[in-house]
């Protein structure tokens, strides 16, 4: 069985690794042990600033510091980063196109027991609507590390969507990550499943189950939600005729919506979406929640079979 590492863990480790670059500064809002920025703090205490439980101030202070030549990572839970501090991100970071990277951990229902108040399911929608913002939703630890590296190299705001749950490591050291590029990880011609984050692993599992049923599903990992890789979506629409999207986010405004926008304008084919159905989360064990909210390999298989009938 594959090793399991939470993407938040890989994020903290990557900050500690790439933090040798003296331009990098990390802010946190009293959650450094949970967001794992404490790993950076341990190594580079002089460039770590705890801003306390005050996310609005943290985002704007990060913006101000970035104007002085720093690459600032501002970390907190996704609910606070893209929720509470949403307008600060818009006006003080995106509007002036500043070099602030938002490390938003604890996205989705898979945080488990903390429940709905902390389960961010609307962040991609909020962040996607903001000009200048880049959104990356890594699937595993390897991709997270590369996404952090790419974020440092990219000039401008980046929203990194990270999870609390330990998830299987999918990719090996040969994996290449480029902002704005999707990756075909399984070939197939009957349909395409486009997944992001935690759901990539589920999509790979679904690929196996579908194969046993004689259905050849193409699996596309879509780590960058914005800018979305239009080419890989159009290619999938042309070559497989139907698409299923899968994400741990509201079906409104996230990956599914982004794919639908491209397909509707460039090459219309049916698109079915897996995601939370305009509902809040609730408390429970992560695995049980993923099941209850329809975010498992089995759910993807059912949706895929439904999708093929639409061809």
């Amino acid at each position: 069985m594959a090793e399991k590492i939470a993407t938040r863990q890989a994020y903290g480790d990557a900050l500690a690794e790439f933090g040798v670059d003296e331009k990098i500064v990390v802010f946190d809002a009293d959650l450094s042990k949970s967001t794992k920025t404490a790993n950076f703090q341990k190594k580079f205490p002089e460039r770590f600033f705890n801003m306390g439980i005050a996310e609005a101030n943290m985002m704007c202070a990060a913006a101000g510091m970035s104007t002085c030549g720093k690459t600032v990572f501002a970390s907190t839970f996704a609910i606070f980063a893209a929720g509470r501090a949403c307008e600060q991100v818009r006006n003080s970071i995106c509007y002036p196109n500043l070099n602030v990277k938002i490390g938003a951990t604890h996205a989705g229902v898979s945080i488990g027991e903390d429940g709905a108040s902390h389960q961010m399911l609307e962040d991609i929608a909020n962040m996607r609507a903001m000009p200048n913002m880049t959104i990356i939703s890594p699937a595993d630890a390897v991709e997270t590390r590369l996404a952090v590296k790419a974020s440092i190299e990219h000039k401008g705001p980046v929203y990194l969507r990270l999870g609390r749950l330990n998830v299987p490591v999918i990719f090996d050291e040969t994996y290449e990550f480029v902002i704005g590029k999707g990756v075909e990880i399984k070939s197939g011609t009957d349909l395409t499943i486009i997944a992001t984050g935690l759901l990539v692993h589920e999509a790979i599992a679904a690929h196996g189950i579908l194969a046993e049923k004689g259905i050849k599903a193409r699996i596309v990992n879509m780590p960058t939600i914005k800018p979305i890789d239009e080419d890989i979506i159009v290619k999938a629409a042309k070559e497989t005729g139907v698409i299923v999207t899968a994400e741990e986010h509201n079906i409104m405004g996230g990956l599914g919506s982004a794919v639908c926008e491209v397909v509707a304008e460039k090459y219309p084919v049916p698109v079915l979406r897996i995601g939370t159905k305009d509902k809040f989360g609730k408390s429970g064990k992560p695995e049980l929640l993923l099941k209850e909210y329809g975010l498992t390999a089995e759910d993807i298989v059912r949706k895929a079979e439904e999708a093929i009938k639409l061809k």
Partner: protein
Amino acid sequence: MDKKTLLELKKKAVRTRKHILDEVYAAQSGHPGGSLSATEIFTYLFQHEMRIDPANPKWEDRDRFVLSKGHCAPGLYAALAIRGFFPEEDLKGFRSIDSYLQGHPSMKDVPGVDMSTGSLGQGISTAVGMALAGKLDKKDYRVFALLGDGEIQEGQVWEAFMSAAHYKLDNLTAFLDHNGLQIDGNISDVMCPEDVVEKFRAFCWNVIDIDGHDWEAIEAAVEEAKATKGRPTVIVLKTIKGKGVSYMEGVAGWHGMAPDEELYKKAIAELDEAMASLEV
């Protein structure tokens, strides 16, 4: 400050006020009241105090200024133009579609603007970030931020004040334009933020309470702020909203309203008179 310098500053303040009127009249929108109440501090900082270079607006070692009450862009733009960041004749394009002078300060569009502001409460936080960067890099630049007294009703302002004191940002000086009025009326009627001096003290800042139209008091306060170590300073400027234009003084309605032709001409006549009295 010697007499000659003082006289020059007074003249530049009148020039700033005339530009504010020109900008708002040409645009037929914008915020004259709070721009006029803050004219002395705009003038003192940009024409006398700040280490800035109009030929190199992004100079790394420059002093920074954040207009946290971003709606007073007319005052900031006038100060920047007089300082030489862009031509004074461009000011009449304020708020128009073919001008770079956005309704609220935009750092990507306007030379000399260090931070895009307009959404109240956010500017002071960005100034905290700049001051923190200065400390980290062991640079000697100073960061100035101007807030409105209505603006401090925003909770984020107090997050920013808490963090500036926590990190002992003595390179940061905030100014409160305490003119007592906001759009909907007296600040104490809308949502009383008093006692502002005691509140700032309780947040562990060095607080200096002065007449915001008194040049010598401004100079002394800024010098005290620069000499104060280990904590940030806030200078509470007791001011008159609409200062310098008789019919605007102390009237909340002129927070965000442009004068018609008749009132514009009256304002300009008053300011010309003020200038003439300085030139005697």
